[in-house]
């Protein structure tokens, strides 16, 4: 069948380039295709948003590009980080990259710090692991400076994690991920567990990070509002694949993929005037639908959609989209663009 195409050529300022990445889990019921042929690039200092419903493989992808998967997960494809492929890299080499080059910011900050270690010990441990040549005073300085950039006063440096609130712990986690100034950071739903004011504070911090640290961020979220606030580009993920990828402004203004459009419409914000939702639920990734995985829920589905997996095409607004509505027309079989007839989706299939 179709070979997976390159989404676009690799630009010189690309920090990380993911090519046809697949991450599958073997379960008793069959293989779970959590990530199934994903390609994208992240440029230096850029924030790329990754958005989608829960269970579409966002978190797996985020950890997959850092090589932080359970041993039994099967990974294929390439994750090129500054020319080196992280897939198949030795554990040792990968570990030495985590911290100084690659970082991860987590969803639940409350449980991510070792309760028996002072905040200072977390920093000293990290610095000592990767930059043993620094003196203790240099390490302290470095840690306090990074914490300060996140708004944690130096007086709190030697406190224990339980003495901090959720928002402060998230700031500490961000500082911990950035203290070695990595080139690439995955932020996995960094604000989901936080209140709206704290969320906004953290988003401001992430914006500062981009400015001050020159770090590229892959920001995973299910909240389109956060994407709009924090990201230059956005990748919309559905059922293990990227449906659409492009400049955030363009995607929000003119979503090319019906899934993106429906997702935007179902988001409830202060400017929402009517309720809208996508019928059905994201598919079982053990036996995903044939062809385009969104076709059973897609209002615009055509007869070609269940038959063939749509190749990626680039729209005039420079959005990469995998949807037959955008062609390529020469690959649609005759009569393939007729509307697809099917049964209505009931609540029985609801998420």
């Amino acid at each position, binding site marked *: 069948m179709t070979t997976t195409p390159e989404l676009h050529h690799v630009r010189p300022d690309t920090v990380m380039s993911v090519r046809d990445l697949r991450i599958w889990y073997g379960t008793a019921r069959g293989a779970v295709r959590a990530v199934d042929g994903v390609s994208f690039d992240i440029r230096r200092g850029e924030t790329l948003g990754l958005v989608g*419903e*829960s269970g579409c493989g966002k978190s797996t992808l985020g950890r997959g590009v850092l090589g932080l998967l359970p041993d039994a997960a099967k990974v294929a494809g390439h994750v090129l980080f500054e020319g080196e492929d992280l897939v198949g890299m030795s554990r040792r080499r990968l570990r030495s990259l985590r911290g100084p080059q690659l970082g991860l910011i987590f969803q639940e900050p409350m449980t991510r710090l070792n309760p028996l270690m002072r905040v200072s010990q977390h920093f000293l441990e990290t610095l000592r692991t990767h930059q043993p040549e620094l003196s203790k005073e240099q390490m302290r*300085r470095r840690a*306090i*400076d990074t914490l*300060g950039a996140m*708004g*944690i*006063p*130096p*007086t*709190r440096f030697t406190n224990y994690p339980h003495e901090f*609130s*959720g*928002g*402060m712990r998230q700031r500490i986690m961000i500082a911990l991920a950035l203290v070695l100034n990595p080139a690439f950071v995955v932020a996995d739903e960094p604000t989901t567990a936080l*209140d*709206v*004011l*704290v*969320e*906004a*504070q953290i*988003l*401001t911090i992430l*914006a500062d990070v981009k400015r001050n640290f020159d770090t590229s961020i892959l920001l995973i979220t*299910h*909240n*389109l*509002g*956060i*994407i*709009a*606030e*924090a*990201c230059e580009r956005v990748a919309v993920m559905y059922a293990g694949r990227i449906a659409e990828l492009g400049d*955030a*402004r363009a995607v*929000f203004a003119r979503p090319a993929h019906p899934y993106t459009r*429906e*997702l*935007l419409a*179902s*988001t*409830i*914000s*202060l*400017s*929402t005037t009517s*309720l*809208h*939702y*996508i019928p059905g*639920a994201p598919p079982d990734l053990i036996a995903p639908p044939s062809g385009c995985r969104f076709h059973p829920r897609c209002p615009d589905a055509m007869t070609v959609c269940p038959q063939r997996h749509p190749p990626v095409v680039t729209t005039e607004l420079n959005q990469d989209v995998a949807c037959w509505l955008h062609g390529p027309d020469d690959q649609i079989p005759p009569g393939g663009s007729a509307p697809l007839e099917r049964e209505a989706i*009931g*609540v*029985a299939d*609801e*998420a």
Partner: protein
Amino acid sequence: MSQTKPDPPLLEVEDLRVHFALRGGVLQRFTGREHGSVKAVDGVSFALRRGEVLGVVGESGSGKTTLGRAILRTVPITAGRIRFDGTDITEMREKTLRPMRQRMQMVFQDPNASLNPAMELLAAIGHPLRIHGVTDDDDKVRATVSEALDRVGLSPVELFLHKYPGDLSGGQKQRAVIARAIILGPDLLVADEPVSMLDMSVRAKILELMIELKRDLGLTYVYVTHDLATAKFFCDTIAIMYLGRIVEYGPAEQIYADPKHPYTQSLLRAIPEPDPTKSVPRDLPRGEIPDAAQPPLGCSFHPRCPVAFEICGWESRDLRDLLERHWLAHPDDEFDRERRTVGDLAALDEPSLTATVPVGSGHPAQDVVDLLERIRADDPHEPTWTGIRDITPAAGGVRVEFRDDCVDPSLFDVGGGQQVACLLCRDGNKSKGPNDGRR
């Protein structure tokens, strides 16, 4: 529903207080003796007409969930009154209250935990019928449950009757919870963040269902949420809560169009809009919601408030924040040098209007006075200084006196049914409502 006669309120809450005793150390835990208390709900009043939707909005720790539970009497009430349809249920014994429970029900935040995992849907949803002796006949229960399932959209019913919660998706579980809540035909539904744990594509469906039920069954809702966006869509009246109190109350349209309390204003500004042409506000309130066990003196919001002034309640802990913010801005040599001139900052953690800043060993008290003056010179417009009356060297440290005429704002009427607990709104309006000062 006819609105010809002016109905008495379905639910009236009057100066409700729920204080949880804090158990201190091991010994207190054993003896059960209390050790201070958390004022989860601290003097809340409102009335709810039949068919009205009240949105209780606040961050975690604001007491909104406790308020919802207190209305249903599942947490012990410290003081105040709750009247349901004219009946005072505040001190009703559980036994007398039990029949009333048919008329007031609840939908929970976590659909995964609000159904007994060991009960299939037929038994779980039909249980209220048996509990209240409506029917014990298996066929009748089955028929009524089927009807309820159908009503919440879980059809074909046969597919769901014998399912266990573990076999359902989040949205389906929440529908089942709603089915259980409406099976006895209640008047009041307390919905505690019913959609916040659901995927965004499902949220709209559940909200739509709740709106339908309101229309078809004449339900009255207390909608507890942290999400101003869904509240705007769903609620007639909004109550914004902060540290156990309502800080702003009024018709939804008015509050969204013209928020008066600085807290409401920042909440509204902080919601990320799915529109990249708008950007993150930079002037957010600093810090986070404080510990409810020791709320700030005066107005609870003053430490975070961008427009706070002299009498908002400046106190010792604000001084600590001030020092820490100073060192945050000058973390290098200045911190290392200055930190030594000041003793243990924990001395400032007890809320007080006269704080004694301990002096570091080997330093004269004047060093601390100088430090404070330097900080003031750095940023003379910092509002904390407006609350400080005097800084004098004293025994054991430097004595900082704050203004003692601070005011704890009650809800001020600003017209159009809108009430705001902010001193900026008190001029020209007399205090209304029973929310008296905390101290």
